[in-house]
């Protein structure tokens, strides 16, 4: 690979390092993601997966290395941070819906406030997104009245309302009851099929095998191994990857 990003590379991370106090959470992590690619990040807990994708939209500040999102370098420049944040959507483990707003208001808030969209326009978009994730009838309810799976689908719709180029998923199914995991994964798979660039931290190996273009294995803050699902599940190179897979499968 060259030292320069090609036009299709929508996320470029080069030697990203991050410390929490004395603890180094990320050690020289480098990853290039093509547009429309689905990359799944796996690894034991505490391996730095979440920290890594949270650096990409600056929820955590990386202290060394470069991150470039859609050609915009992530620096201390507030304008760049704003641009990157409005181009990346994020879905959290704990949903993080706004409990004081209805489902519809949750989805329309950012388009109206950040994109300066007209209210009725935003509501139309929101309704079509709710249709897409399969819960249009819940539009006027509050998050607390929905099941976990429904809340997570609303959270996905909320991110999509900003028409992001990239979607980051931080363990989107880990807080869900088993029977609800599938409804969320289905929405994500459908999203992947539309050609969305996705970076997914998850423990769902079935999803990784079926949907991912590439799988990244992280351990101890380092990217240990990157490859296609096929490569991973049949022919993993690294011992630690093998150990992890043997424990989880």
């Amino acid at each position, binding site marked *: 690979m060259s030292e320069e990003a090609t036009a299709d590379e929508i996320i470029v991370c080069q030697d990203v390092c991050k410390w929490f106090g004395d603890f180094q959470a990320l050690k020289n992590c480098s990853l290039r993601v093509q547009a429309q690619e689905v990359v799944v990040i796996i690894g034991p807990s505490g391996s730095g997966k979440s920290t890594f994708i949270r650096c990409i939209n600056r*929820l955590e500040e990386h202290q060394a290395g470069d991150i470039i999102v859609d050609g915009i370098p992530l620096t201390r420049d507030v304008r760049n941070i704003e641009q990157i944040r409005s181009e*990346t959507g994020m879905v959290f483990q704990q949903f993080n*819906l706004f409990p*004081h707003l209805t489902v519809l208001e949750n989805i329309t808030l*950012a388009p109206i406030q950040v994109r300066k969209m007209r209210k009725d326009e935003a509501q139309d978009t929101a309704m079509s997104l709710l249709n897409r994730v399969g819960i249009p009838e819940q539009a006027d309810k509050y998050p607390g009245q929905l099941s976990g799976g429904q809340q997570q689908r609303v959270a996905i719709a909320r991110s999509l309302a900003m028409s992001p180029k990239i979607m980051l998923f931080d363990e989107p199914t880990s807080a869900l009851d088993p029977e609800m995991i599938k409804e969320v994964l289905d929405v994500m798979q459908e999203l992947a099929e539309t050609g969305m660039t996705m970076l997914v931290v998850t423990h769902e190996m079935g999803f990784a095998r079926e949907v991912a273009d590439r799988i990244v294995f992280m351990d101890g803050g380092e990217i240990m191994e990157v490859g296609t699902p096929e490569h991973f599940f049949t022919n993993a190179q690294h011992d630690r990857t093998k150990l992890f897979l043997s424990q989880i499968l």
Partner: protein
Amino acid sequence: MTSAADANSDRSVLPITERYTLIGWVRRNLFSDTLNSLLTLAALAFLFIVASNLLRWAFVTAEWGVIPANFNLIMRGQYPATEAWRLWLVIYLLGAVVGSSWRLLSGKFSGAARLLIAIPFVLMLIPFFSMATRLNLVITAAASAAGFFITGYLPIQRRGRTAAYLLLAYLVVMLILLQGVGAEEGPMPPVAPILWGGLLLSLLLAFFGITLSFPLGVALALGRQSKLPAIRVMSVIYIEFIRGVPLISLLFMGQVMLQLFLPDGFPLVDRVLRALVAITLFSAAYTAENVRGGLQSISRGQYEAANALGLSTYQSTIHIILPQALRAVIPVLVGQFISLFKDTTLVALVGIFDLLGIARTILANPDWLGTQQEVYAIIAVLFWIFSYSMSYASRRLEQRLGVGQR
């Protein structure tokens, strides 16, 4: 097994102490064992002594004449009698505004709403009220009911914002009504604040104190939570300074030193206004601490979600953080209002004629020498009615919101 079944068949009737009869209740709650019985007897003796002395004082010893004779002073101080209608108008409007914003914010005619409407009726029970006063109280109750139901028929979208505007508009209208406009001979001649007094002034000071302190308090709370050290440190210093000193010292300082801080030739600030400044600065520190509690109750995920959506710090504070934080601390703020209402009595010590100050002037009148017990008892009862009903309503609200139940 058979013997147990036999025993059970004998027990098909609940033992007397478990039954929901009067005797069962008495046995269970008052005489369940020896210690309990002794306690009950001691409590009864205590109650008998207190009640008999209290009743003897209230109906035999006490000379209540001082109260009706000074009734208007107690209620509104030196506010001219010819302008009293303005005060009632202010109170009607308050009823309407409270009813209306209750509909806007809560939506339901719950037990607490019923309680709020009941306040005027409870006040009617005060023996010294004239029939006209009682009529006015009924009108107030009607106004709040009307405000509640009429608002229900209005197509209002942004409920919280509407309620806030309503309150602001009320503040302005209230001030105009109280202060008056136009010439001395006009329909609403001006009445200087120094003439406002009694219960009227106590309520106004608490009301304005909490309202004016609110923006400052919220700003301080946000400042204390800020990630910028200089702003955080200054907020902490302000809050801890104010909370560390007694209110009375701030009030005295306001009276003697406020004028010193202002440039030469600045018009002399009214005594009442100086007290209000001190009360506001005092209350802001407590508001800040209460709001901070609400801010801390919001999970980090909310900030992160707002950031990830691209909302600016200002936008996420206004749309995400504050609405949740403030909603969580409404009951606490009601509590703060109640204690501020009680604390306003301290202005009597800097020569302002609030409810307590008026009581002191009445007692200084040679006609009413030696009626301290009667006058102060009535003042205490007035304060008690207001703060107890408010705290009761807020407790109901709290239970309904499920706050404080872990």
